[in-house]
């Protein structure tokens, strides 16, 4: 890669990092929560944020859409939440997985961990292709089916994803609250140990495999992936400009074959490939009804 493109990649990385940090600070802007050892209780929590951000985080100002979906599914009506589904459809149709690449706080954590200079692991292609489906199973089974189908002793459904898997909940809510609040600390038991182990495994894996949680486990990523192909925000490779150098593929954190898969549900629109392309063959486009005609992949 030429020096110019290396610099461009660095600049783009810094810019994206700034956006990610600002988004994480904004979504968790209730600093008083950390001092009061409690959580925000204002009306902004009527609204679901477009990313995985735990509402049990002391700083969280909005509701987590995945937590909210399970709350309604496990509630009295045992139904899918039209409100959350509708909001996520709107977010997905407008932005697709750009939200994963630029706004998600747990994506930011993974992007910071991958900067630790240790040799990265390339997941074998066949395993990678298979594991990608796991996140759809998580969405279907843990977020939509089990909370509605299995009753707990109180007659409601547990939020299975939050309870047994979500690493964002443990990191943003569990650890700070258990550290700050002695009552909660005294209640922490086997489940807390399990969730901490899940979180640690994901964090350690994130050092070696970029965006491992987004690739294989995130139910919100799975939902947005369904919209990525036709969302208003698009990325495309102009075939007539592409010189097939492979630089885009080598920098992709999602381990995509960029010219073939940039339009797939897996691309988080991080823009690294665009910054690395020596032929300026990758373009971004935002439109609702208009469609630029170009020879594209």
């Amino acid at each position: 890669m030429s020096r110019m493109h290396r610099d461009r990649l660095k600049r783009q990385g810094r810019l994206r990092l700034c956006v990610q940090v600002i988004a994480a600070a904004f979504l968790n802007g209730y600093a008083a929560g950390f001092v009061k050892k409690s959580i925000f209780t204002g009306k902004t929590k009527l609204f679901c944020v477009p990313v995985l951000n735990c509402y049990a985080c002391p700083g969280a100002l909005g509701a987590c859409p995945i937590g909210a979906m399970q709350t309604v599914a496990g509630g009295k009506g045992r139904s899918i939440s039209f409100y959350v589904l509708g909001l996520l459809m709107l977010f997905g149709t407008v932005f697709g997985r750009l939200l994963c690449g630029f706004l998600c706080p747990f994506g930011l954590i993974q992007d910071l961990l991958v900067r630790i200079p240790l040799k990265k692991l390339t997941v074998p292609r066949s395993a990678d292709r298979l594991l990608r489906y796991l996140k759809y199973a998580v969405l279907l089974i843990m977020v939509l089916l089990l909370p509605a189908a299995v009753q707990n002793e109180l007659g409601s459904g547990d939020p299975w994803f939050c309870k047994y898997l979500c690493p964002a909940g443990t990191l943003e809510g569990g650890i700070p609250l258990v550290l700050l609040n002695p009552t909660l600390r005294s209640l922490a038991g086997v489940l807390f140990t399990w969730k901490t182990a899940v979180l640690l495994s994901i964090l350690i894996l994130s050092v070696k495999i970029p965006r491992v949680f987004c690739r294989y486990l995130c139910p919100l990523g799975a939902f947005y992936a369904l919209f990525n192909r036709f969302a208003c925000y698009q990325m495309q490779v102009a075939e007539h400009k592409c010189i097939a150098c492979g630089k885009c593929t080598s920098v992709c954190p999602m381990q995509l074959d960029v010219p073939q898969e940039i339009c797939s549900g897996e691309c988080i629109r991080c823009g690294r490939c665009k910054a690395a392309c020596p032929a300026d063959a990758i373009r971004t486009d935002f439109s609702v009804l208009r469609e630029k005609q170009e020879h594209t992949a």
Partner: protein
Amino acid sequence: MKRKRILRLCGLLCGAALTALGILRGEPEVILQKAVKICLECIGIG
């Protein structure tokens, strides 16, 4: 290309309609009630 535009429009219209329906069913209040209490499942306590 035309298919994408149609899907986009469907996504936006269905999304807006479902959101409105959810609001009419009172779902945001259910979510608020959950979100303003410390979610014990989320933090790994119960």
